[in-house]
C-alpha cells in the first residue's frame, strides 16, 4: 500500500488546528473545530483507500487501476453526517446567543453547588486552592463572609 506523504501532513495540521479550536469556550469556534477535525478524518479515509486510480465505474474503466470505491462511499456518508451535526451545533450557538447574548459554554450549576458544599466543610478547605477557577471566586457567597 502506497501512502501520500503530503496528505498525511495536511491531515496532521488540520487535526492540530481543529483540536486547538475545540478547546475554546466559544461555541462558534468549537463548531469550526469539529468541522476541521471531521475533514481531517475524511482525508484519513482517502489515505486508507490506497493509491489513486481510475474512476470506479463498472464497464467504464478497467478494474485493475480502479481506485477503491468503498472508502469513498464511507466518506460521503461521513461528510453528510458532519454537515448535519455542524448545522445543529450552529443552531445551538444561535439559540445560546439569543438567550444569553453570547455563545460561551457555561459551567455546570450543580457542580458549583457541590463545590460550595465541599467548601462549607472545614476539612475540604484545600479544595479551593486546587480549583483555581476564576468564575468560582465571584460566585461564592461564603467567600464574602470570611
Amino acid at each position, binding site marked *: 500500500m502506497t501512502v501520500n506523504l503530503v496528505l498525511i501532513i495536511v491531515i496532521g495540521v488540520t487535526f492540530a488546528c481543529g483540536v486547538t479550536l475545540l478547546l475554546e469556550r466559544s461555541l462558534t469556534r468549537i463548531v469550526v473545530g469539529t468541522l476541521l477535525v471531521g475533514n481531517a478524518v475524511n482525508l484519513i479515509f482517502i489515505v*486508507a483507500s490506497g493509491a489513486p486510480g481510475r474512476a470506479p465505474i463498472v464497464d467504464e474503466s478497467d478494474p485493475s487501476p480502479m481506485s477503491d470505491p468503498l472508502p469513498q462511499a464511507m466518506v460521503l456518508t461521513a461528510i453528510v*453526517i458532519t454537515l448535519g451535526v455542524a448545522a445543529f451545533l450552529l443552531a*445551538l450557538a444561535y439559540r445560546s446567543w439569543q438567550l444569553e447574548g453570547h455563545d460561551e*459554554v457555561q459551567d455546570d450549576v*450543580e*457542580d458549583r453547588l457541590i463545590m460550595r458544599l465541599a467548601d462549607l466543610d472545614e476539612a475540604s478547605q484545600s479544595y479551593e486552592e486546587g480549583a483555581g477557577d476564576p468564575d468560582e471566586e465571584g460566585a461564592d*457567597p461564603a467567600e464574602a463572609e470570611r
Partner: protein
Amino acid sequence: MTTDSAMSFLIPLPVVLALLGAGVCLALGHNARAQRVISFVVLTAIVGIAATLLWAADRDGPQVVYVGGWPARMGIVLVADRLSALLLLVSAIVTLTVLVYSVGQGIIEFGRDTPLSVFYPTYLVLVAGVSNAFLSGDLFNLYVGFEVLLAASYVLITLGGTGPRVRAGTTYVVVSVLSSMVFLIAIAGVYAATGTVNMADLAVKLQEVPEGVRVVLQLMLLTAFSIKAAVFPLSAWLPDSYPTAPAPVTAVFAGLLTKVGVYAIMRVQTLLFPDSPLSELLLWAALLTMLIGILGAIAQSDIKRMLSFTLVSHIGYMVFGVAIASDLGLAGAIFYIVHHITIQTTLFLVTGLIEIRGGSTSLEHLGGLAKAAPVLALMFFLPAMNLSGIPPFSGFLGKVALVQAGVDRAGWLAYLVVAASIVTSLLTLYAIAKTWNRAFWRPRNEEPDEVGEWVPSTGTKSGEPWGDTVTVTSVRSLPRAMVAPTLTLVALGTALTLVAGPLFGITERAASELRDRTPYIENVLEDGTMPGESASAEVSP
C-alpha cells in the same frame, strides 16, 4: 441453512418500521393524536418482531439478512444473534413504556406551546438508531446506527431550547461528535489494515494483522465506545448533560444509550479481539468506573444527578463482565444489562413523578413523600432496592454471577475488582437510603438544610417537564397515564427475579455463542467462504 429461514425478512423491520413511522409522524406534525397512535403501533410491532427474532435466534442460531441482496462480503449485513435479539427486545419494551409515559406527560402540558410535534418523530428515529446499532453486522453500519441515535438524542436533549438544556446539550453534542470522530478514524484504520468492515470477515482477517496494529485498532474502538458507554475516564459528560432533559427523555437515554456503547464493546471484544491483552486495562476501567461513579453519587443533592452518577457507576459492572470474558462473566454482564436497562429507566420515570408531585427533584426541597404519596414511595423503593442489589431482586442475581466469574478468574486484580464491586453495591445502598430518608421519610417543611439559603438558579429545577415557563408545584394527584407505565416497569423489574432462571439460560447461551464465534462467522459468511478457507478452522483458538 439457517440464513434463508422465514425469519430473516423480519430482521430489518425494527429499523425500517421506526424510520417509516418517524416520517409519517413528521408529516402529521399538527395532529398529536395520530402521531401518538402511529408511534404506539410501530413500537408495539417492534416488540413483537424482537420477541420473534429472539425465539428464532435461540432456536436456530444467528439470523442473517444481506441488505439489498448483495453477497456476503459486498454489502451490509444485519445479524440477529441471541445477544442482539435479547437487547432489542428489552429496549423495545422499555421504549414502548416510556412512550406511554410521555403521552401522559404530554396530556398535562397539552394546550401550551410544547414542542410535542417534534418529540414523536425524533423518538422513533432514536429507536431506529438503537435497533440498527444492535443488529448491525458491519462496523460502518454500526457507526451509522450510532449517528442516527445520536442525532435524535441531540434534538431530544435540547427539547424546548431552554437555557440550561442548551448548555447541557452543547457539552453532550461536542463530546458525542468527538467520540464519533475517534470511531471513524478506527474504521479507516481497520479498513486500511484488512480491506473490509464486515465484522464476521474481520474476525477472520484480523488474525493475520500484526499484533501491534491490532492493539492500536482495538484501543481506538474501545476509546470510542467507552465515551458512549460512559466508562470512567471518559464519563464526565454524562451526569452533566442527562439531568436537565425532560423526564421521559432522560429515562430512555439512561436506559438505552449507554448500553448501546456497552453492547458495542462486548461485540468488538468477543468477536474481533478475543483473548486480547487489553482485558487487564478493561478491569482497571471497570474498577475505577464503579468506585468513582458511586462516590460522585453520594455527593449529590439532586435525585436526577444522583441517579446519573449511579448509572455511570453500574456501567462498571458490565465492563467487568466483558473484561473477564468467561462464559459466566459474559452471561452475567448480559443479564446485568437487561436488569439495568429496566431499572434505571424506571427510576428516572419515578423521579419524573416525584418532580410533579413534590415540585422539585432536589433533596433540599423534598420531604414527607412517603406519607403524602405511598404508591409513589413504593414505586421508588422497589427499583431502588433492586438497583442496590438487595437479595431477592435481579440486581443481586446479576452481581452474584459477576462476582462468581471474578473469583473464578482468580488473580489479585480480579479479586480487587470483586471487592470494589461489593463496596460499590453497599455505597449504592447508602446513596439510595440517603435519598429515601430525605425525600420520603423525613417530615416536610423541616428547617432548610445548610445550603437552603442558596437558591439554585437553574430555570428547569422546579418541574417544567417540557421546558415551559409555567411552574408545576405539588400536584395532588398524579396523572394515571404516567403512573400506569411506571408501575408496569416496576412490576417488570421485579418480575425479572421470577423469570431469572430462563433469562439466565438465554444469557448463558448468548455468552457461549459469543465466545464460540463460529456460528456468527459461519452464518454470515456461509455463501461467501472461499474454497480452502475454512472459517471455523482458522478462528477457533
